């Protein structure tokens, strides 16, 4: 086992991003797609923290603060939209939600 370097962390973060990306592509349930979006955001924060640690700067760590805030706001609004959509259409399956009108 070699010591964990920046490459290791960025590779883990890229793999996590890839898993979230394929979740967005493959799943039809809007809620699960949304969870996979969150996974992608977390993967990007992992890369930021790793870069920050291995370059001895604070900027990446502080940026993660803002990402957390935006993610919280995004989840609140997104889930409200999903609930409103469900009230209107009685479904949240993506392949049944294919028209913008009615």
């Amino acid at each position, binding site marked *: *086992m070699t010591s964990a370097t920046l490459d290791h962390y960025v590779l883990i973060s890229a793999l996590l991003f890839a898993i979230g990306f394929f979740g967005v592509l493959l799943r039809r349930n809007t809620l699960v797609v949304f969870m996979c979006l969150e996974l992608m955001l977390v993967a990007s924060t992992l890369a930021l*923290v790793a870069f920050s640690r291995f370059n001895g700067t604070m900027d990446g760590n502080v940026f993660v603060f803002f990402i957390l805030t935006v993610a*919280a706001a995004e989840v609140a609004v997104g889930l409200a939209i999903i*609930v409103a959509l469900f009230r*209107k*259409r009685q479904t949240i399956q993506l392949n049944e939600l294919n028209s913008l009108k009615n």
Partner: protein
Amino acid sequence: MANFLFYAFALFTLATAAGVVASKNAVNAAMCLLLSLVGVAGLFVALNAYLLAFLLLLVYAGAIVALFLFIVMLLDMKETESRGFGKLSLAAIILAAGLLVTGLSTFATRGRLPVGDPALTPALGPDIKLYAYQLFTTYLLPVQVMGFLLLIAMLGVIVLSKRWEGSDDVK
């Protein structure tokens, strides 16, 4: 020991993230997301970002996953998720997979990221003063913008979830 923890947390994170994508039930997916976030928090600890690990657990695991579970149970949807893809989306998926594999393999074989000398780079440590100093000097304007963003998000959620008079909601 630290290396063992890194590999353990990394494997745990990736396995549970795969669980989010693979699980049929949305509640199971939310639980896997929770475990995956715990793994990422462990990696943050390995990177000496203790405060961020704590915040990640607090904000994501405490608030966001709880909100997801609440909505999953509120909507109580059918378990049927239809399978099969159209030609176009199948092509898009294959293209995306190809690009991703190419990118990751290029990165793994010839990636050389710019790193300071690890012996010279001091661990920043858990000093909360560093965060506070950055947030209230360099990033003061973004902090205020974040405040407005949260306010707007809150108002938007209230508007979205209010039942308007004369709306044709299906009861």
